[in-house]
């Protein structure tokens, strides 16, 4: 693309079916914004 550079094309909506295991680290203001999935 000439006019747009995408830093991320993730689709959080796709994690509705795969997420929710709860193994990820507790976050506090890692924060949710920088933590990893630990599934």
């Amino acid at each position: 693309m000439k006019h747009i550079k995408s830093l991320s094309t993730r689709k959080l909506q796709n994690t509705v079916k795969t997420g929710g295991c709860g193994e990820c680290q507790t976050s506090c203001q890692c924060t949710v914004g920088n933590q990893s999935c630990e599934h």
Partner: protein
Amino acid sequence: MVHQYRQNGYNIVMDVDSGSVHVVDDITYDIISLYSDHTRSEIAEIVKEKYSSVSKDEILEAYSEVQALVDDGTLFTHDVVKDSIIDFSKRPNVVKALCLNIAHDCNLRCKYCFADEGAYHGQKRMLMPFEVGKQALDFLVASSGSRVNLEVDFFGGEPLMNWDVVKRLVEYGRSIEKEKNKKFRFTLTTNGVLLNDEIMDFCNREMKNVVLSIDGRKEVHDMMRPFPNGSGSYDTIIPKIREFARRREELGLEYYVRGTYTHHNTDFSKDVLSLADMGFHEISVEPVVAPPEMDYAITEDDVPKLLSEYDALAAEMVKRYKTDREFNFFHFMIDLTGGPCVYKRLSGCGSGTEYLAVTPDGDLYPCHQFVGNKDFLMGNVWDGIKNTELRDTFKSCNVYSKPACDDCFARYYCSGGCQANAYNFTGSVNGQYEIGCILQRKRIESAIMIKAAEADIDGEEDQEGK
């Protein structure tokens, strides 16, 4: 929902519900701002009028790129989660993290301490006995269901004032991991006064992360973090935490130096850079949370200055990227491509449900900031959660339970904010601490701008390498 902003020369477009982020040129920035309310030909006309030197073909080309992102589901997406999928109140009751207030006592008298200088609001000064800590770990294991990864933070007061119990609890935790099929992640938060070689060596073997408290410049630190006799603590702790951080870095282990800024140092970027220039690479300096009547509390009048400080800090971090002066700033760290699932993003820290604080005599509270407020006493480590109504209140806390989050672009990065801050400022755990929200939004915008700049720098290096 789409959020657009300009910072440090970058035009940034966040697609809130998908989590996608795009950097665009000026024409495209304007096209996106018009996209929802205008037709393709109307947009072409409006943009052409503004950019007279740009051909119509180029404008339509940019429009096509925008349309491609829309078709791909990474721009102008909608919230498909709300109402239909997640019922937070039906989440299983699982505990996976404890904050052990291993000492309700402290060797400093920090003016802003929410632990009331280690005394926790009228509770007697005391150290947690080993038996209470052991029972807390047993409670955690028994309450954790099928969760494997468990977290225990040694907190206070000052946890090093009860160091032998810390060591014994770590050893006990390790001794039951295999049998119980659990993995403990131990962490420690300390003011550094009592650090010595033996403590550092033990922490480097057993603590996944250590948080070392220092506010930045000496005069700032000493004003807010004195010893009981009123003298500053900076000169005592600096050599110790520098050595500790050096050893952690050498071993590839996590640490943070962590400070608090207040109304008295709204120029806090200088404190961050002071820490960076001392050689610390993992830094957090955060706004004080205090009742408005305190002389050091952040005020609404402070906000414009604080926002400009975040701008300045972000620009400086871009300058330092890939130099030997580079460092990480906790609130500017962001994962744009991976990160946790939507459930985690909506529910946040899990205080009062997945995460609890334990007092030295075994009482349970929703988190370390509620300790001592009897309205939030949830139970104890022997009997478990007795106040199930309170647990259910916290279990229902999420982005959708907070009206202020409805139209906020930051909601998937901040998860609705801190329940304790909301309660302290509004009387409701679902309330909005407005100053906190304003600062959080600026931090997220800055973090994404830094990512855009880093991508540019990386791209230039790739070009030079060809």
